[in-house]
């Protein structure tokens, strides 16, 4: 009996302890960071801070719904509270893996829904240090991922992954990510420019557990060259709120229901 148990143990041991590949780590991280829950809702407060400390505020409600598995299609609905000149604007994104997003912007001053041509890869989101891709993620297949080391960061065991874009579609040459071994959230990301110099740094500053999902509720992206940084705080974060499909439509873009944006 004991012998069988040992054999069983030996049989399962390699599987249990077999190291995850870099690709698998990034995939798990993507799921934990960008695809958690069926849907997601948060009041997002962005502070754009110059080197000299001048602040500008962007405040919005962000709703996200997943369609399919992690890495699959998603829809975003964003309603702006601040600044005053974009108040009541809404923004909708249909995000597709492997191709460009569809985006619509509603301009309340002329009651017009406008389609927006924009590229994710390098475009700044509302003037912040985050690109669209930093907010909504990058396709797993767009980079070659390598596990370069494992180390502790702020007391947490991390995988350190190097992700090098396959095509020159972004303005950085590679990215190093410190991914928490336990919950797979990215704790830090360092972006290096084409000359190999450090360009911008992402840090996850505070965590919360919402409906059992570990969540980064405060984060910062800092531009090393300009000294400009953007601090993001998620308030009223929630998951699995039952966002209906029909919310992601022109009708509700023009007239966002209070229930979903407040």
């Amino acid at each position, binding site marked *: 009996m004991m012998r069988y148990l040992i054999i069983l143990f030996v049989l399962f041991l390699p599987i249990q302890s077999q190291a995850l590949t870099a690709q698998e780590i990034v995939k798990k991280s993507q799921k934990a960071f960008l695809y958690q829950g069926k849907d997601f809702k948060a009041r997002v407060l962005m502070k754009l801070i110059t080197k000299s400390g001048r602040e500008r505020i962007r405040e919005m409600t962000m709703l996200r719904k997943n369609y399919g598995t992690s890495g699959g299609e998603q829809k975003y609905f964003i309603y702006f509270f*601040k600044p*005053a000149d974009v108040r009541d604007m809404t923004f909708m994104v249909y995000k597709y893996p492997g191709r460009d997003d569809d985006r619509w912007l509603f301009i309340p001053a002329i009651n017009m829904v406008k389609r927006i*041509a924009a590229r994710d890869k390098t475009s700044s989101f509302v003037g912040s240090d985050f690109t669209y891709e930093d907010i909504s993620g990058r396709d797993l297949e767009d980079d070659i991922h390598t596990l370069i080391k494992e180390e502790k960061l702020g007391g947490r065991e991390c995988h350190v992954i190097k992700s090098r874009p396959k095509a020159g579609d972004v303005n950085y040459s590679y990215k190093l990510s410190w991914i928490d071994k336990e919950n797979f959230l990215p704790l830090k990301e360092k972006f290096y420019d084409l000359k190999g110099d450090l360009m911008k740094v992402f840090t996850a500053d505070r965590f919360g557990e919402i409906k059992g999902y570990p969540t980064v509720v405060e984060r910062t992206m800092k531009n090393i060259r300009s000294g400009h940084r953007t601090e993001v705080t998620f308030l009223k974060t929630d998951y699995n709120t039952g966002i209906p499909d029909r919310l992601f439509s022109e009708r509700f873009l023009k007239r966002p229901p*209070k229930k979903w944006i407040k």
Partner: protein
Amino acid sequence: MLKISSYLFLAILSVHNIVSADEISVNGFIQGNYSANLNRPNPDGSDFKWAEEKMQLKISADKEPFYLFIKTDLSYEHIDEKSDLELREGYIDYLADNWDLRLGRQVITWGTGDLVFINDIFPKDYEAFFSGRPMEYLKKGSDAVKIGMYPAFASAELVIIPFFEHDNFPSKRRFRMFDPMRGVTDRYKEEPSTKFENTGIALRVYRNIAGFDTSLYFYRGFFRQESMQPDSVSAPTRLTLFYPRLSVYGASLQSRAFDGIVSFEAGFYDSRQDRHGTDPMIPNQSTRFLTGYQKQIWEDFTLGLQYYALYMNDYYQYEKNLPAGFPKEKEWQDIFTVRLTHLFMHQTLKFSFFSFWSFSDEDYMLIPEVKYNFTDHLWAASGINIFGGGEEWTRFGSLDRNDNLYVQMRYEF
């Protein structure tokens, strides 16, 4: 057609609900807006096309299923030295599960065009646009009922417009322009009266088909630009300015393509009072096309291109009946537009350039503009409206001596 009693019923119901509204919000801005002539003073002697301070208040009250919105402008205009209180928008929404209703003064924008309109047949203020006022003042409100319907297979907006509202064109006091009947000063304006058969109807049915935002449009009402009817063509002494009957049938498509956004729009203008093109004072029937492309060239830099063409039907009849001495329009008229936008400094500084160019009329309008957001509440913009080319009666050529430099400053709260 909804009856007055149901309007009243809704209004009373809404007011009752709004007294206990869940949320009342008040926003708005204080604005200074000035536009100086660069060529010559206005015909009325002023050096300014526009000089105004204004305060706008936006009040909204929400108590589902009702929503009340009021946007009102209190302004002082220096050229005419007059103050004004204007209701820009004021409506009540009723929201049901798969339909909704908006009653009152409302701004509606349809179609895919960027400053070029085919199926957006709602009233506009071109004088505001040419005078360097902020873009939103190009659109005028319609006093209307809009019913939105959202069954599963498509969505629709039906707009019923009992009160006619004309487009506002540059006035002869502020703008130096061509007038084919300059000598006739006895002019009489005749607007469609508010009665059942004059009620404007506009319908848009839309849905996404294979990634294309697709819309069909229908309009039955009047042209919003006036036509002139002289009492006698050979020796006119009196002009009647009126708005001929019009129906429009149109469609538009918009989709992501070629690394950008591509759009197509078309419309057939059925000029119901001149279906054979024999009356030279009323626009002939016409077919209009618009195609557009916009693309982000690099970060924070976008390019927008449009080509618009108008084909005048029954051109032979138009030519045959046009009185001698009248400027002759072309059978094919077109406009090519370019928009360039570049954002800097975390999208707080914007350089933009918009141009209209007509190949058929050889005239143009250029609008270079710079806008800066000093803080989250305060922005300023300045630009130039430059007109030229063509003949003295063509769209932009006629405004040749009206170039102006404008400044807009706004504090939003």
